[in-house]
């Protein structure tokens, strides 16, 4: 049977098959779903992925660790900074090194800034899908503010590649930290503003409560992670269970839901944005002084000033750029709490300057696999609510 478009089956003339995507505004990227409908009720939903598959795991085997870093920008392209940090932490685990405290604090700021940016896109587009266009303008106004900060820090809005194995490209300067301080102080009020448009809005509640429900057992069995899992009542957040980059030093809460429906996923992400601001506030207050990278010329690029004046540093720079650095033989799995959930990198090294195999465990891949559970038995109009509430990024699903 063709799954290309609209058709009726012979045995069940009342059941029609409708193709949704891969190019559809409500699929948030190139996700395709084949829906079997009985009237307006979804009888079966089959997601099809792979339209953004770029073979990143294959590419990684043919690149040095440093050369692979820019590819991590292009996985979850709404939160490249979080993937940068996740990848570097995995390589650092393989090397057995730890970055200085100031670098850790800056990375925490990056991760939380990325989380806010990602959640702002999710909220704006989710509300827009439901017909609440106003929210979109509010969140995208503030997302520009967030992007200004990202750009000031890294030089790019999307292709940040800001972290390096053993540090970050350059220190965050005083002015940027002051700008971020203004954002952190103001942002919780903005979240209140978004909430005033939706949380008690009768239409929003009708469209989201009891819609796209997943039980916690199903969520766990599908390997669901991140805010979507927490909305189903499971308090699992790697920032708490396996703290990295000094997350254990910050005081914050992990919001959870009880129903596992679209509304709970909404509430959890809204609260996460406040908690992100709270973490950034503490990180800014306790920002340590000192270097932002390890002092190991075999791994971390030397300072540019020294490269231009000293022979030894010039050689180190040349070696790292042209050949990369040497990693020990071994294998590690390291994961971080990305905005979408558990982003894991499983690196198998046989020694040398490129991974023998790099496996990327992306949260959106597992999260989107639960879609049939969310939508089957519901109405077709609720399919878009369910997709938006899972917050998939297809760049990360397909890799």
């Amino acid at each position, binding site marked *: 049977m063709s799954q290309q478009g609209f058709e009726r089956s012979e045995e069940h003339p009342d059941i029609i098959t409708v193709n949704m995507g891969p190019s559809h505004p409500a699929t948030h990227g190139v996700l395709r779903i084949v829906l079997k409908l009985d009237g307006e009720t979804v009888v079966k939903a089959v997601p099809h992925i792979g339209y953004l598959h770029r073979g990143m795991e294959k590419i990684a085997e043919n690149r040095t660790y440093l050369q692979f870093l820019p590819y991590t920008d292009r996985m979850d392209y709404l939160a490249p900074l979080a993937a940068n940090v996740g990848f570097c932490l995995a390589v650092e685990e393989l090397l057995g090194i730890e970055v200085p405290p100031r670098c850790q604090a800056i990375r925490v700021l990056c991760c939380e800034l990325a989380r806010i940016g990602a959640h702002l896109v999710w909220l704006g587009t989710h509300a827009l899908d439901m017909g609440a266009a106003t929210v979109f303008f509010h969140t995208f106004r503030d997302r520009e503010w967030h992007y200004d900060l990202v750009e000031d820090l890294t030089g790019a809005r999307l292709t940040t590649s800001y972290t390096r194995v053993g540090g970050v490209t350059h220190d965050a300067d005083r002015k940027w930290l002051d700008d971020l301080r203004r954002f952190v102080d103001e942002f919780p009020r903005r979240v209140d503003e978004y909430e005033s448009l939706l949380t008690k809005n009768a239409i929003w509640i009708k469209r989201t409560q009891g819609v796209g429900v997943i039980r916690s057992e199903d969520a766990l*069995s599908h*390997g669901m992670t991140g805010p979507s899992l927490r909305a189903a009542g499971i308090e699992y957040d790697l920032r708490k269970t396996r703290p990295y980059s000094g997350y254990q030093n910050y005081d914050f809460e992990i919001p959870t839901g009880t129903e596992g429906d679209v509304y709970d996923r909404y509430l959890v992400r809204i609260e996460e944005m406040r908690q992100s601001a709270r973490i950034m506030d503490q990180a800014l207050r306790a920002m340590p002084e000192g270097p932002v990278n390890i002092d190991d010329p075999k791994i971390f690029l030397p300072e540019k000033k020294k490269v231009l004046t000293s022979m030894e540093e010039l050689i180190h720079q040349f070696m790292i750029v042209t050949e990369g650095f040497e990693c020990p033989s071994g294998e590690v799995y390291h*994961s971080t709490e990305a905005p979408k959930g558990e982003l894991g990198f499983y690196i*198998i090294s046989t020694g040398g300057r490129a991974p023998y195999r790099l496996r990327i*465990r992306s949260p959106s891949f597992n999260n989107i696999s639960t879609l049939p559970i969310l939508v089957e038995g519901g109405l077709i109009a609720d399919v878009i609510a369910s997709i938006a509430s899972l917050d998939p990024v297809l760049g990360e699903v397909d890799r």
Partner: protein
Amino acid sequence: MADGEKTIAALRERFPDAVISSSSFRGQHWAEVKAERIAEIGRWLKDDPAAAYDVLLDVSAVHWPDDPQPMEVVYHFFSLARNDRLRLKVRIGDRGPVPTLARIWASANWNERETYDMFGIVFLGHPDPRRILMPDDYTDHPLRKELPLYRG
């Protein structure tokens, strides 16, 4: 934290003939088990309260073309209650087969499809053995080592 260490000891006790070897690196422990026993071991890992691995985080594979058993399937398990991770590996011939874990953890469905798609490994009893990322009419398995990055 020594991830998986205790469970591997328990596995050796419970399935003495199925555990082939074990090793560790940077505090992460893994064991190689017999491929044909993986579903049985998986069931135990999920159901036994002392193991309680309620999440199968990931299934992937590694291709070692020079080895007599060139394919290695790697499973990452996670126990929420014990905050413990476990890595199990099985070694198989070029195309497998390996028993599926999709009846124990739903996540194995898509992850095994991807492993089939990328390596050509067959998962016995898989409920939906189709490609997932590559087009249906594609004939290769891109993560196999003999496939070059560019075909010019």
